[in-house]
């Protein structure tokens, strides 16, 4: 049974209070009615299903009720961190691909530029 840090309750709580919400940072196309079948398939069905670092959504459904995101290792099941919905995908030193390394010190800006709003 996992122990999950809720960024809104600011403490670790039992997995029993949480509902997993699938992959994080998959934004619903704002023009969804107009996208192609392939784009819809990509948005709704295709997933990386990574072995290792995953960014995923959780909902503290039996706690504060909030959705939030977490970075976890799918092999060890260890959490690197949890962060509030809407915050950009974090860079996990030594784990995230170097390509995602922030360019400047001004991390926030860089992310806004590269990631857009996180889910």
């Amino acid at each position: 049974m996992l122990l999950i840090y809720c960024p809104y309750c600011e403490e670790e709580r039992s997995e029993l209070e949480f509902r997993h919400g699938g992959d994080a940072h998959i934004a619903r196309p704002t023009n969804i009615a107009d996208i192609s079948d392939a784009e819809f398939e990509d948005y709704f069905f295709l997933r990386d299903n990574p072995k290792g670092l995953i960014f995923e959504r959780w909902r503290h459904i039996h706690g504060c009720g909030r959705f939030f995101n977490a970075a976890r290792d799918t092999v060890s099941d260890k959490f690197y961190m949890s962060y509030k919905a809407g915050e950009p995908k974090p860079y996990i030193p030594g784990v995230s691909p170097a390509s995602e390394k922030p360019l400047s010190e001004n991390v926030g800006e860089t992310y806004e530029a590269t990631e857009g709003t996180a889910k």
Partner: protein
Amino acid sequence: MRKYSVFAVAREAMRGHKGWEPQWASPEPRKEYDVIIVGGGGHGLGAAYYLAKEHGITNVAVIEKGWLGGGNTGRNTTIIRSNYLYDESMDIYEHSLKLWEGLSQDLNYNVMYSPRGVMMLSHNVHDKQSFQRHVHANRLHGIDNEWLTPQQAKDYCPPLDISATARYPINGAALQRRGGTARHDAVAWGYARAASDRGVHIIQNCEVKGIRRGPDGAVTGVETSKGFIGARKIAVSASGHNSVIMAMADVKLPLHSVPLQALVSEPMKPIFPCVVMSNSVHAYISQSDKGELVIGAGTDQYNSYSQTGGLQIITHTLDAICELFPMFRRVKMMRQWGGITDNTPDRSAIQGVTPVQNLFVNCGWGTGGFKATPGSAHLFAHLIAKGEPHKLASGLTLDRFRTGRLIDEAAAAAVAH
């Protein structure tokens, strides 16, 4: 290959079993194969066997990261049935069940297929509507599946509590008598032995690290922990790791991998004659030949490649088992474990060509892979040999997620209204 028989065993008994030879050869890899199958589980080994036996393709290697049958083949609760709802599912699972019925003789290896009956319990009006829909569909498709009254269900499985006072009283059951169980390890070993005997190379402890492609984009071979091995065709059947392997060829799949848990009790004298499943309360139970109660639990909710999960998944299932069979509360859990299941959005498998030339995939069997083993392997071999799906597997292709032609067995079970 030395034929297995009661006489062979007797002869060996006389001389301390010194004469048995290895069940399969463990050769060094060749430079190139016509077909490389990634994944030494039942599906992969079976596909290799049928490629050799039915398509005459013997320059084949099965590459396994660990030990044969070490994935879900050796970790499941060995339930076999074919009473699914949709034509696509009935086609493949019934094809599989027919192969199960003759598998021991075909492989000359006792896989202990035991058609002791699979009974699915109905607990409410909605279950009944859903199961009878299955029963009728199966009958018209030519698959045995019958509706039982609660008393008939108890007669078939005496430990069952059919009292009206139960939290979820049993209002009937669907029984597939040809359903049952088999010995999981024997399936992997039997296929490996028969495939090896036909010239297939079985290469264990060899991890695939990359898929090499030529200028035309077609596959040319695999990078492995034992070096590069060339291949004209690559067939991936690595349940639990399909996303990882396919990513090596830049193919993204509609899969998520979650741990599926199971447990066994201490061995006891025969008390449980069949397989019982209850979807409403999440219980799957049978008794092995060693006497252990074999109980299938649920999946953890999060993606994971660890073959472990939370205790709450186990207790949740035991709640239901003890509700259905109150005398089992004093029985003891001896061992619990987990396997990694690849799940698709419609809970049906994917078997077909991929966007990459000469790269084939067999994945997404979720929690139903074992029962499908011979059928899936047989049809996968056809796909690899012919380059296009066998008609019985034509519904399982990858494109359905683009067009919306889903085979939603899960949704068909629907929800209480």
